[in-house]
């Protein structure tokens, strides 16, 4: 009941390689089918995101070292040269594979530590594979555990709760003031790359209306086109400042483009509806004294980078807790695995003993021909009772074993001592 994992991620492979090894849903299905058909894996699950491609599986009993087989399968399936792939792939099995998966779903293996998206992707991959019937009891339990870990890490630690980029921090601040942004408007001053990033984040969070103002009309049009917004004449402050709740400014100019005076009259014209300004210009685009205005909240680049810095430090301290949660669940899973193995073992042992008993009695009883049929039967029953008694107690003790390492060792020992030398029944 081994578990194997073969894959690559953003840490081991550059994007060109990752692109080629990623799976669409269709490909994932085909791969799972083929892996099963070829007898490489009896349970399969493909996890493919923009930052990782991994194949989790349970090999059939016979396989002792499946990794090379899986690596060459991947190389063949995606038509990627084996040597390119071999430097990028990692393989894990059993405990290491379990731990890897749990760390992934907890967001500890992500580019953006603690991100929530990966959990959804793991869930989706599991659901997909489960529907196809590609998973079995082991992977089912494994991935259920992974989802649990993901949930716990996100609810019990602060990993991933705080924004880690200037854009994210700014947008989150806007949400602190306005709540959901789904009925709000934003005005974008300056249509450069920074603006694009922030606008994209705003759109992700559902902002309703976008207005773009840029000195060069072309760039403004392009940005408006890209994100779905309206262009406003540069300098038309009277109308431009009336509607938006959020202003994102990243204009390259020596002097502030938005003086306090203009903002002040705008605020009066909009009866002091709250205004959140992200001034990302260096030097600043909005006159500094405007921050004193009533109901105006201005954050400049320094403020936002400070916040991100704070958040980074806070996050560092959350990592040990997340790792602890992962370890706990790894232990739980391995314990479950051992229990399941134990049940199978006990059954196998029982039937082996029964066989032995049958053979043993047949030869012995043949020599005791003076005994009746009834006596034969009684002797059989007595032996069965004895064997059962001998078997039950150790089995119970093993099942109740708390310490994981000991449990696994004992299960192994049981298997080695009683079942392996004559081959499996």
């Amino acid at each position, binding site marked *: 009941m081994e578990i194997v994992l073969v894959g690559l991620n953003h840490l081991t492979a550059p994007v060109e390689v990752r692109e080629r090894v990623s799976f669409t849903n269709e490909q994932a299905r085909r791969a799972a089918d083929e892996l099963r058909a070829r007898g490489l894996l009896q349970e399969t699950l493909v996890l493919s995101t923009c930052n990782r491609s991994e194949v989790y599986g349970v090999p059939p009993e016979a396989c002792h070292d499946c990794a090379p087989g899986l690596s060459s399968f991947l190389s063949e399936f995606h038509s990627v040269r084996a040597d390119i792939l071999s430097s990028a792939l990692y393989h894990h099995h059993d405990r290491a594979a379990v731990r890897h998966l749990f760390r992934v779903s907890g967001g500890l293996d992500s580019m953006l530590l603690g991100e929530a998206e990966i959990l959804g992707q793991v869930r989706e991959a599991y659901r997909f594979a489960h529907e196809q019937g590609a998973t079995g009891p082991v992977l089912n339990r494994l991935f259920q555990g992974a989802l649990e870990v993901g949930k716990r890490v996100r609810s019990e630690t602060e990993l991933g709760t705080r924004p880690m980029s200037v854009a994210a921090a700014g947008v*989150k*601040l806007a949400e*602190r*003031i*306005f709540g959901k942004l789904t009925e709000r408007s934003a005005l974008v001053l300056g249509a450069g790359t920074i603006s694009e990033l922030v606008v994209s984040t705003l759109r992700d969070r559902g902002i309703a209306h976008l207005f773009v103002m840029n000195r060069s009309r072309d760039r403004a049009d392009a940005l408006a086109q890209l994100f779905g917004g309206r262009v406003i004449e540069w300098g038309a402050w009277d109308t431009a400042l009336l509607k938006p709740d959020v202003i994102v400014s990243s204009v390259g100019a020596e002097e502030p483009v938005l003086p306090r005076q203009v903002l002040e009259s705008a605020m009066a014209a909009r*009866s*002091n509806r709250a205004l959140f300004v992200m001034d990302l210009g260096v030097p600043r685009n909005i006159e500094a004294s405007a921050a004193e205005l*009533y109901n105006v909240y201005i954050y400049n680049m320094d*403020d936002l980078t400070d916040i991100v810095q704070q958040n980074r430090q*806070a996050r560092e301290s959350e990592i040990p807790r997340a790792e602890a949660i992962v370890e706990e669940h790894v232990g739980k899973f391995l314990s479950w695995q051992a229990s399941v193995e134990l049940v199978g073992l006990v059954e196998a042992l029982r039937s082996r003993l029964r066989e032995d008993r049958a053979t043993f009695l047949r030869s012995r009883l043949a020599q005791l021909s003076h005994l009746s049929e009834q006596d034969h039967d009684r002797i059989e029953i007595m032996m069965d009772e004895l064997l059962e008694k001998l078997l039950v107690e150790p089995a119970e003790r093993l099942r109740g074993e708390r310490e994981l390492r000991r449990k696994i060792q004992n299960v192994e020992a049981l298997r080695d001592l009683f079942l392996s030398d004559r081959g499996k029944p």
Partner: protein
Amino acid sequence: MSLFGWLLALTYLVLEFYHRQRSVGAFVLPFILAFFLAANFAPGDRLSPPPAHGPMFAFHVTLSILAYSGFALSCVLSLIFLVENRLLKNRQMSNMVWRLPALELLERMSQSSVLIGLIAIGVGTILGFIWVDRLTGQYWYYDPKYVITLLVLLLYVAYLRLARTASWRGPRASRLCIFNFVVVILSFTVVNLYLSHSHRYF
């Protein structure tokens, strides 16, 4: 007094339900608890029973207490608003800020709470008049309680108007709301204790 606590919690639940926001609870509950405790330790055992009872009277009392709880809640929400606003305005990002509810939400909940309070006190006061009229044949007495209740009513109506439409929205409105509640407390304590005739309970 504990009726107050219960109604406070109930009002909060209604607000939570209507605004579909559960995050405020964590911050409001300590205040609710504080009120409960205050209610427990307040010197309330010298109750002189009012002249008569009856359903009208019961409604009058309950509605009035409901009004108090609505106003109290709006005060609490306004306080939280002011704290958060200060942090955001001065760009002092502490751990707490990320967990606090949105400013707009606090404002809206506060207004809803005031609305509940206003309706309750409006109806409750009318019932009080009716009850007194039934009892004594006369519905108007020169009681300071009436005056201050009218004042409270006007103040809160002003708050609602200003907070929604004019340039008072935001921190100024919140401060007004808190001031209003101070007046409410005055109404409840000072007036009840010293100045009123028919509202003497202690």
